[in-house]
């Protein structure tokens, strides 16, 4: 079967300047001085393919390149080398707890986030009630986001994102948000999406998420794939890595 998503030898290096120079003033004053920087290779030739309807888990320690990989697949970052080939529309649910417009109320923020995620105005209008219900925030719909708790804002964001899902779904630490009731709703919605044939990529530290929800998983370490297989195998390798047993 033709893969719906192919990641082909993707590499990404960030240049971390050892001397900070991010103003016109600094550039003018240091015009003829070299600009020292240290390369930080975050991804190093990562390749894998995902079949339509498959659920792939991605594990790795902090700094292993998971989030950068998701951002490259989502088209937010550009790889230095390699390519990502998508054969269907994609929705990413990344960093959703952050960055709302605090001056606007929940409904306006739903429109803002919904349209960024590719929904039309008619689709947002149609889904508005069920988004507010999913987030359990109907009573606070006209409250400005600056008065929301972080948990409430995250719930709202996930509710919007879950209504904007196209064919491929990217999730970053999805089940770490909200209370037990909200997590249960997210899981149910997630399972419904997977059951209806959506392709899903999940990044998580949580072994239960990977073993329960993923057909297959891979483990990233130092920007490379060091283990690949079913959820259980990769979770074992991950736990061995966390416990400091190299070569796991």
């Amino acid at each position: 079967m033709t893969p719906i998503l192919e990641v082909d030898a993707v590499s990404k290096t960030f240049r971390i300047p050892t001397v900070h120079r991010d103003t016109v003033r600094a550039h003018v004053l240091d015009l003829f001085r070299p600009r020292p920087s240290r390369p930080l290779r975050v991804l190093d030739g990562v390749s894998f393919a995902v079949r339509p309807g498959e659920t792939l888990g991605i594990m790795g320690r902090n700094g292993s390149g998971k989030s950068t990989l998701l951002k490259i697949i989502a088209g937010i970052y550009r790889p230095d080398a390699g390519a990502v080939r998508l054969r269907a529309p994609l929705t990413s649910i990344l960093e959703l707890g952050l960055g709302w417009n605090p001056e606007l109320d929940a409904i306006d923020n739903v429109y803002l986030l919904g349209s960024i995620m590719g929904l039309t105005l008619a689709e947002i209008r149609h889904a508005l009630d069920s988004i507010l219900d999913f987030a359990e925030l109907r009573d606070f719909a006209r409250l400005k986001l600056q008065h929301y708790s972080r948990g409430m804002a995250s719930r709202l964001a996930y509710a919007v994102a879950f209504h904007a899902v196209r064919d491929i779904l990217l999730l970053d630490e999805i089940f770490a948000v909200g209370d037990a009731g909200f997590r249960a709703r997210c899981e149910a919605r997630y399972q419904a999406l997977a059951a209806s044939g959506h392709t899903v990529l999940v990044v998580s530290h949580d072994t239960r998420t990977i073993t329960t929800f993923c057909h297959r998983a891979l483990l990233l370490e130092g920007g490379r794939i060091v283990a690949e297989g079913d959820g259980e195998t990769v979770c074992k390798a991950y736990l061995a890595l966390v416990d400091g047993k190299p070569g796991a």
Partner: protein
Amino acid sequence: MSAQTLGWLGIDRAALPGALWTLVRTDFKTRYRPTIGGFVWALLKPLAMFVVLLAVFSLVFRSEPQYRLNLIIGLFLWDFFVEATKVGLVSIQDKGFVLSKARFPAWILVVTSAANAVLTLLVFCVIIVAFLAASGRPPSPLAVGLFALYLLHFLVITLGFSLAASVLFLRYRDLNQVWEVVTQAGFFVAPIIYPLSVLPERVHAFVYLWPPTPIIQFSRRVLVDGVVPTARAHALLTLGTLAILGAGALIHRRAAPRAAEYL
């Protein structure tokens, strides 16, 4: 949407109108606290400037018969230029959260950031035409049409600038301060509070290189003097405008794909 189906716009065509409308509407709401009073308040600054400058400089340039009319045109157009470029320069930084969540084209943030300044400019245009009519010089339909054409050029110029400046600002974090100094100096370079005729003829060409100058001067020629600039002058204006847009779009196209990495 997948990269293959988004095309050069960088966004699903069906979602584009909604994204544009929502960004403009929420920007307006945030800025003016959804009241008409908030919008009117924003108009007061240039109006107050006009009154003060008129009081001072109409004495200095007493020999200029149409000084008031020229001043109001110059000042309102200048106000649009400063507002639109100031907001455009920080537009990607201000709405950076959008770029970190999904694949979303940065140019939309730049274009929609100009909406408030355009709205203010439209109100100014009504005031300018009313002011001209009240002064016994109602502009002809041709003059109004040409004025609209100049405003369109002005909008394109500010967009060209903002497309480039907004991505450069992510790498040069004091660019807004540099631009503030440039616009402060630029206020005196453009013939806003003084008539161009007070400068020696040989420097006129240099003053015209500062983009607001031809827009302001051409607008005054058609609205106040009732004279249409030459075809060559129009061609130069259009060429210059397209050059600025082209340069801005090129810089933006080069730097925008990595914008999210600098936020």
